[in-house]
C-alpha cells in the first residue's frame, strides 16, 4: 500500500485536465497527507452515501411499479425523490436503543464494522481510468477480503443482541455469506486469470478495445470485454448470482426476512444503527455490481474506444469524467437488475439457499475456472493463438496503455515469468 499514491492520484487527476493553470496552482499548494486524506474520504463518502439514498428510492419506485402502484410520490417533489433523505432524517431522530441483555459495546460496534468494511472496499474501486482512491496491486483480493469483514459485523450484531432471533438470524446470515463468498471468489478469479493481474484498473484497461482494430477487423471493440469471452459470460452469471446472495438480497434473504422472521439479526436494531446496515447493504449492492462491471463488462470503457481516444487525445479530464459516468451507469443497471429480481422472485428456504451454493454454484464455478484456464491453452494448441478473434492477444494489448506510475519493469517481469 502506498499512501503516496493518493497524492499521485490527485496529481494525475490534475495533470490530466486541460486546464494547466489550475493544476499548477493546485500542485503548488503542496497539500500535506492529512488534508489529502480528508479530501479523499469526503469524496468517497459522498460516493458511498449517494447510492444508498438513490437506490432505496429506486427500489421503492421499482417495487411500486412492479406491484402496479406508484411508490413514493410526494416527498421532494413529483417523484418523491427526497423520500430517502426524509427517511434518514427520521431514523437519525430515533432513540438509540439497546436491549438490556445485549453486549453493549459489541452491539454498538457491529453496524460500524459493516459500514466501515463496505466503505473501505470503495477505496479500491476504479470509477475511471486511474480514478481509484487507492490503486493497489492486489485490488480485487483486497475488496473481497473487506467484503468478508461484513460477515463479522453481522455475527457480532446477532450475537451481541442477546436475543435468540437475532442469533439465529445472524448464524444463518453469516453461514450464507461465508458460503457464497467461495463461488463468488472463484468466479471473480476467472477474469483475473484471463487478465493476469489483480489490479482492477489494469483488468479494465485490458478490456478496452481500440477503434483502429474495429476498422481493421470489423470486430466491435466491446468484444474485448470478458463478458464476451466464451467462459466469461457464464462466469458473469454465476458471479452475479453469488453476489446477490452475498449481499443478502432476495431471493436469498430468508435470514433477515423482516415480514416473516422479524428481520433476523436486525431484530434488536433500530434508528440510525439499523439504517447503517441498510446503508451498507445498498452500498454493497453497488459495490459488487461495480466489481462485476469492472471484471466482465469493461468498467469505464464505453465499448467503442471513445474514452480511451479522448484520453489519448489529451482530453484526460473529460475522458475520465465520461468513464466515471459510464461506470456508474453500468453498475446502476446491475443494481436495478437486483431490485427487479427481488420483487420478482419468491424467497427460497435456507436449506435451499445453502444447497444452491454448495451443491451447484461451487462445482459450476470450479468447472468454469478450469475451463477458463484450459481454454486459452487448448486454443493455442489448435489455432495457434490464445483467443478466437484475430485481434491482438491480451499480453500484447497491455503494453498499449501505459501508466505513468506503472513502470515497464513490472510488465517485463510478467512477460518474463510467462516466458519461463
Amino acid at each position: 500500500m502506498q499512501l503516496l499514491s493518493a497524492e499521485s492520484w490527485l496529481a494525475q487527476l490534475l495533470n490530466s485536465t486541460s486546464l494547466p493553470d489550475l493544476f499548477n496552482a493546485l500542485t503548488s499548494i503542496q497539500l500535506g497527507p492529512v488534508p489529502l486524506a480528508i479530501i479523499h474520504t469526503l469524496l468517497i463518502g459522498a460516493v458511498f452515501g449517494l447510492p444508498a439514498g438513490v437506490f432505496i428510492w429506486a427500489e421503492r419506485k421499482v417495487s411500486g411499479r412492479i406491484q402496479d402502484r406508484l411508490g413514493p410520490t410526494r416527498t421532494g417533489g413529483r417523484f418523491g425523490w427526497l423520500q430517502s433523505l426524509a427517511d434518514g432524517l427520521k431514523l437519525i431522530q430515533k432513540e438509540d436503543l439497546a436491549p438490556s441483555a445485549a453486549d453493549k459495546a459489541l452491539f454498538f460496534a457491529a453496524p460500524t464494522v459493516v459500514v466501515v468494511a463496505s466503505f473501505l472496499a470503495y477505496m479500491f474501486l476504479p470509477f475511471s481510468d486511474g480514478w481509484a482512491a487507492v490503486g493497489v496491486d492486489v485490488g480485487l483480493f483486497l475488496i473481497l477480503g473487506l467484503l468478508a469483514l461484513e460477515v463479522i459485523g453481522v455475527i457480532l450484531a446477532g450475537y451481541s443482541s442477546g436475543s435468540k432471533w437475532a442469533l439465529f438470524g445472524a448464524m444463518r446470515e453469516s453461514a450464507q455469506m461465508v458460503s457464497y463468498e467461495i463461488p463468488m471468489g472463484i468466479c471473480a478469479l476467472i477474469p483475473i486469470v484471463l487478465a493476469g493481474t489483480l489490479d482492477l484498473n489494469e483488468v479494465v484497461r485490458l478490456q478496452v478495445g481500440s477503434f483502429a482494430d474495429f476498422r481493421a477487423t470489423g470486430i466491435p471493440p466491446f468484444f474485448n470485454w470478458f463478458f464476451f469471452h466464451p467462459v466469461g459470460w457464464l462466469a458473469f452469471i454465476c458471479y452475479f448470482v453469488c453476489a446477490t446472495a452475498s449481499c443478502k438480497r432476495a431471493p436469498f434473504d430468508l435470514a433477515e426476512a423482516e415480514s416473516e422472521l422479524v428481520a433476523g439479526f436486525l431484530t434488536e436494531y433500530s434508528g440510525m444503527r439499523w439504517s447503517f446496515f441498510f446503508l451498507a447493504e445498498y452500498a454493497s449492492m453497488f459495490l459488487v455490481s461495480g466489481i462485476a462491471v469492472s471484471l466482465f463488462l469493461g468498467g469505464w470503457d464505453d465499448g467503442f474506444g471513445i474514452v480511451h481516444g479522448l484520453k489519448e487525445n489529451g482530453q484526460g479530464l473529460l475522458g475520465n469524467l465520461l468513464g466515471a459516468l459510464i461506470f456508474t451507469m453500468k453498475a446502476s443497471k446491475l443494481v436495478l437488475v437486483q431490485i427487479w429480481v427481488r420483487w420478482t422472485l419468491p424467497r427460497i428456504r435456507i436449506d435451499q439457499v445453502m444447497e444452491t451454493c454448495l451443491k451447484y454454484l461451487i462445482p459450476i464455478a470450479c468447472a468454469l475456472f478450469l475451463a477458463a484456464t484450459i481454454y486459452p491453452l487448448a486454443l493455442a494448441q489448435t489455432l495457434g493463438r490464445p483467443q478466437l478473434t484475430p485481434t491482438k492477444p491480451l499480453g500484447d494489448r497491455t503494453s498499449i496503455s501505459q501508466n505513468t506510475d506503472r513502470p515497464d519493469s513490472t510488465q517485463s517481469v510478467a512477460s518474463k515469468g510467462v516466458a519461463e
Partner: protein
Amino acid sequence: MSVALFWLFAILACGGAISVVLCQNVSRMAASLILCLASVAVLYFLLGADFVGATQLMVYVGGTVVLLIFGIMLTSSSPSHQLRTSPADGFLAAGIGVLFLAIVAFTIGGVDWAANSQKLAAAEPARQGQQQQDLSHGMTTRPLALALMGVRPDKPGAGGYLLPFEIVSVHLLVVLIGAAYLARTKRRVVENQ
C-alpha cells in the same frame, strides 16, 4: 504520516492483544482479536506487504476468526457464561509474560539488526533497484505468485516454493477432510453430574 499511522495501528494491535488477554468474555475476546488482526493487516500494508495483508484480511479476519466465532457460539452455554481463571494463575501468567517480554526485549535490543542486514546484503548478489522499489511499494503480487510457482525473479539463483506450495495444498485437503470427520454429529454423552 506513515510513522503516525504505524504507531496508531501498532498501538491498536497491541491494545487488541492485551484486550484479548484481559477480556473474560469470549466473544469480546474475539472482537478484540479482530481489531488486533486487522491492525496487523494494516501494519503489513504499511510494510509494503500488500498481498500478505490482503491474505491476512481475507483468510484470518474473514475466515479463521469467523470460524472461531462460530465455535464460540456453538460451545458457549450462554452469552454471558464465563470461565473465570484463578487470580493466582493470572498473576503467574502475567509474571511469566513479563519475564518473557523482558527476554525478547533484551534480545531485540541486544542485536545490531542493521549491521546484520548489511552483512547479509553484502553476502548476496546485488538486486535490481527497480525490484527493490517495487517490493517496498507493495508491488508484491507477481513476485509472490512467481515464487510460489518456483520462479524467483527477485533473487536469481534462490529456490522457489513450489514444493511447499503443493504440500500445503495437500495439507489443506487433509485438514478439510479431517475437520469434517472430527466435527461430524455424534451421539452426545450423558453428563455424569
